[in-house]
């Protein structure tokens, strides 16, 4: 299993572009945070951290993160789609379950890296803007962890779709079709909590009254919506991959 993970990471690393894809979101967040002017809103520097976090979450968690899952999953399957790579990979003494698990594990750890870089982007931009007051570390950990968990089902679906379609753009189109409605869904108190593609935003958005020590949304929502869709997409993808014909 370790060697499978190593080989997956090696293949990804060699395409070089993956590093650009990882840095993309945190970098844009960083520059966006630098352009924000809290003075215009009559806010003092004491609340700069809260201000930066609230504004960048919209850009990062609602727009970027769900779309990034599509890019990463596509990059991870790109190598095999070229020149009969699936055949070669599965001719090795590895089980399909393990290949799927290894690819999925690489995906979730890549997203974790992106989340940590986002944390770094917030911190750096805040320091550069001369934030006073303590860095709200606990709030951010909740947000980072929550956003990470919320991408699990999205990554599972995108891995499935990326294995299904040979072209890079087709699975991404599926991703876009589900992500765009999230912009509307987060405005709705009724449908937002039920929509898996709205979860990265809802779980990253800092709010005070969730009645939950670990996340910003109730446990029932984490378990049923994120957890339920994760089970559906993960096992759907796994079952598909076990039966996939390799041409």
């Amino acid at each position: 299993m370790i060697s499978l993970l190593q080989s997956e990471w090696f293949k990804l690393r060699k395409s070089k572009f993956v590093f650009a894809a990882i840095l993309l979101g945190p970098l844009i967040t960083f520059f966006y945070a630098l352009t924000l002017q809290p003075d215009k809103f009559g806010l003092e520097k004491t609340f700069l951290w809260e201000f930066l976090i609230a504004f960048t979450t919209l850009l990062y968690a609602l727009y970027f993160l769900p779309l990034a899952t599509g890019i990463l999953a596509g990059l991870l399957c790109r190598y095999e789609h070229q020149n009969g790579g699936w055949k070669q990979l599965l001719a090795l003494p590895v089980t399909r379950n393990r290949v799927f698990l290894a690819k999925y594990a690489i995906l979730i750890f890549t997203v974790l890296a992106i989340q940590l870089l986002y944390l770094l982007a917030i911190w750096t931009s805040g320091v550069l803007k001369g934030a006073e007051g303590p860095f709200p570390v606990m709030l951010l950990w909740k947000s980072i962890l929550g956003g990470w968990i919320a991408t699990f089902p999205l990554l599972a679906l995108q891995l499935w779709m990326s294995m299904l379609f040979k072209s890079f753009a087709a699975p991404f189109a599926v991703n876009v079709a589900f992500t765009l409605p999230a912009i509307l869904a987060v405005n709705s108190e009724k449908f937002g909590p039920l929509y898996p593609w709205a979860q990265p935003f809802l779980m990253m958005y800092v709010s005070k009254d969730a009645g939950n020590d670990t996340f910003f949304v109730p446990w029932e929502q984490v378990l049923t919506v994120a957890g339920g869709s994760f089970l559906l997409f993960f096992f759907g993808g796994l079952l598909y991959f076990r039966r996939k014909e390799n041409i």
Partner: protein
Amino acid sequence: MIVKLLAADFLKIKRKGLWLLTVLGPFGVVLLQWFNYELVPGRREWLLQRSDDDWLFYLQNVSSFTPLALVLGIAILTSLAASIENETNAWKQLVALPVPKMGVFLAKFTVLSSLLAVASALLFFFTWLLGIYLDLGSATPYAEIAKFSFYPYFASLPLLALHLWAATVSNNQGIPISLGVVGFLFASFSFKLPDWLPWKWPSLQNQWDEPLVNVVLGIGAGAILYTAGMLDFARRDVK
């Protein structure tokens, strides 16, 4: 010559999902407004109260999603169209035929811009249909619906030219798709962008409050970017 190239390219996009996406894009943009107005009871009445001109307010709601769908749609369609040759390394075979490389590029651009034109016409039709269904008043503003459906198309031509070039010269289709994501982030914060950035143009906003400026800019910059992309495509070696 160009007619044959076009016919070949229309044949190549069959059963690849490009037509499906062409229909799905405008349908989805309008469907979201159906959700917005109708899904929650009482929401429609609340939205209608917010303005004097119900049609215009509805059109503005629709057009808040049009630029986003366009930017991502362009990235997806161009990448899919380039993948036809990319996946099977068919660029070599294609340019080995007795056709000019510029013609190959022109044919791809024409096919994609036709698809987007069809999508804009469908957007007009779906917008009109939902507007009638929502009963927004007797005087249907056909000219305004046309403006909100076709102006963004012309304003996004530079993005089409840029993405077609990026998709045809990239071996890794993750690159043009990531460019699309960056463009999407720009487009979703278009009110903060300076007027000269093409990603702002499909939103039809500018400092003069005159959407026609974006149309003219779109066609002009589109022609320049198209020519630059075509010239670069023509002199590049095929891998």
